[in-house]
């Protein structure tokens, strides 16, 4: 698919990182040279390193929406398994939805994050080709959502807070997924998560692809890593429909306001978790540490709130979403006056002969 043109061309550098790549090549050459000839280039290396970091900061503080999408899809970006390995102590995976099977795109299990016993629900994309196929490239099937809900009910029963990590291009659009009720599985999750009687924290760590992401993201807090994205449709899909040209994805990405900064400004996410200089893929440990800090801090806040209050405020949080984006204002008035002056279309006319008794 259109994913091919996002792949970094040379050694994991994205096309807007050329200068950074040059600096790193220079450092590499100097290191080789000093090893071969025994000359000390450490001053030069330090100078280039400094420039490299300045350049990285410059590039990453001005990423366009489309560049952010590329960073979020970077092949070396930390995935769910990195978080499980580095952040979760004593992780035990719990398999299966008890109905159909065990989806590998959604992983669920118990473990400790900063000494808090929690249930973790996360989407996994896989690193190697083999893993990617097993994980279905991070596209869950209905059984994944049903597994997530089953484990969340378990967590609710025993008062374990739920932490969900979102990283999916979207729920899988396949024949089997439709046959087994992809839409129904997601719908039930949205409804049930809204009244789950334990704290629920959701963090978008990479791709937040539409309903597939939302299906495990209805919680008390929704945070995003700085260079992740969260969108109602993939930029390629949006471009194909509205621009009638999939290659206009950069324009679509811009228009969709899918970056953490835009969404935070619009009040659609609660927090932005900073990434290390040059993005999460340049420093996995710091990224995971930042996420861990956020989870620990937020859990400490939420666990003090009485559960009825928490569920009520979660309901209000989602109930009020977009309420400000509606109006009885100018467009509505304009329309009313236009319709008053022109005749109503024929379809709107009341035809008593077809009215049924």
């Amino acid at each position, binding site marked *: 698919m259109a994913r091919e043109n996002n792949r970094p061309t040379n050694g994991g550098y994205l096309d807007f990182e050329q200068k950074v790549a040059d600096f790193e090549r220079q450092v590499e050459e100097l290191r080789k040279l000093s090893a071969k000839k025994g000359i000390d280039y450490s001053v030069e290396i330090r100078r280039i390193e400094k420039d490299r970091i300045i350049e990285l900061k410059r590039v990453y503080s001005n990423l366009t929406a489309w560049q952010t999408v590329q960073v979020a899809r970077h092949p070396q970006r930390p995935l769910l398994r990195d978080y499980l390995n580095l952040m979760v102590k004593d992780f035990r995976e719990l398999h299966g939805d008890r109905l159909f099977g065990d989806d590998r795109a959604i992983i669920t299990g118990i473990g400790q994050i900063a000494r808090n016993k929690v249930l973790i629900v996360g989407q996994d994309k896989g690193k190697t080709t083999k893993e990617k196929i097993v994980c279905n490239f991070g596209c869950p099937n209905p059984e994944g959502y049903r597994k997530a809900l089953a484990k969340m009910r378990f967590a609710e029963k025993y008062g374990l807070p739920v932490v969900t990590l979102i990283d999916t291009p979207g*729920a899988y*659009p*396949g*024949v089997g*997924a*439709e046959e087994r*009720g*992809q*839409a*129904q599985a*997601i*719908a*039930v999750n*949205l*409804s049930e998560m*809204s*009244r789950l009687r334990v704290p629920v924290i959701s963090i978008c760590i990479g791709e937040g692809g*539409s*309903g597939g992401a*939302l299906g495990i993201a*209805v919680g008390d807090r929704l945070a995003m890593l700085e260079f992740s994205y969260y*969108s*109602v449709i993939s930029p390629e899909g*949006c471009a194909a429909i*509205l*621009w009638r040209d999939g290659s206009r994805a950069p*324009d679509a990405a811009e*228009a*969709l*306001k*899918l970056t953490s900064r835009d969404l935070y400004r*619009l009040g*659609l996410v609660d927090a932005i978790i900073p990434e290390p200089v040059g993005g999460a893929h340049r420093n996995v440990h710091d990224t995971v540490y930042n996420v861990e800090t956020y989870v620990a801090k937020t859990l400490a806040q939420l666990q003090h709130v009485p559960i009825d209050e928490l569920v009520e405020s979660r*309901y209000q949080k*989602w*109930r009020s*979403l*977009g*309420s*400000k*984006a*509606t*109006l*009885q*204002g100018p*467009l*509505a*008035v*304009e*329309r009313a006056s*236009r*319709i008053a002056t022109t005749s*109503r*279309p024929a*379809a709107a006319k*009341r*035809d008593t002969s*077809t*009215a*049924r008794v």
Partner: protein
Amino acid sequence: MAMMGPSSTTMTKKPKATWNGFSLKPRKEMPEGLWVRCPGCEHMLYKSAVQKNLDVCPSCNHHFRIGATARIRYLVDEDTFQPILENMTSADPLDFQFRGTTYKDRIRADQEKSGAAEAMQIGKAFIKGRGVVLGVMEPDFLMGSMGAVVGEKFCVAVEKAIEESLPLVAVSCSGGARMHEGVVSLGQMAKTSAALARFNERKGLFISVLADPTTGGVTASFAMLGDVILAEPRALIAFAGPRTIAETIKIELPEGFQTAEFLMEHGFVDMIVDRKDLRSEIARLIDYTQK
């Protein structure tokens, strides 16, 4: 019959088809829009005959797509629909622009085209004398997509139903979440589902009617959360549309894939109901569930 005399042979003999001066095809100067071609059986039909038949093909039972106004007229007792939040429109939260035009322009154009203010109408009404809160989607307005207005209206309808202890009936007919409102639209899926969770806790009855087409974010939220889910015959009901699936997995899709019948076979729809029977089936469900 067989005992009829010799004269019967001349009676049963079909008159030879001769040209009688009138073409069987509609002539070129025929007023536009008087005829419609049925997508189900390819017959040319008189538009007024189809309309009298509730926009259903009299020969093959194909259910035409209809706008919210016509739908309400076919569904509720005459003159009982009291609209709520009629004039609510979108505030364009993302300031969305595309291909040299804007979302605001698109809204204006579609308001003119469909005569509707937004992609859903809600209100109170009676169906065969039973009071209900009704929500009906408008397929001609941005493909009946769900944005902030549809989500808000749906939630207001749910709250009205809770407040007045009425059953809620929603007719879905939608292309899914509205791209032009980005994550605001996406959030409406959670918002409507959360409202229904509340409604459910208070033992409210929600009858979800799926009309052609019900896809994407609407299917994956309130449309699939009905206590009872009804569907019109042959309606397309999907999470991912057939084209998306065909493009992704590159196989030919089976015949009848994602139709109402397919969904019923796989256990996701309770009943397939002809448009003419919708009123009586809804009334029956209300009688069985409400005190």
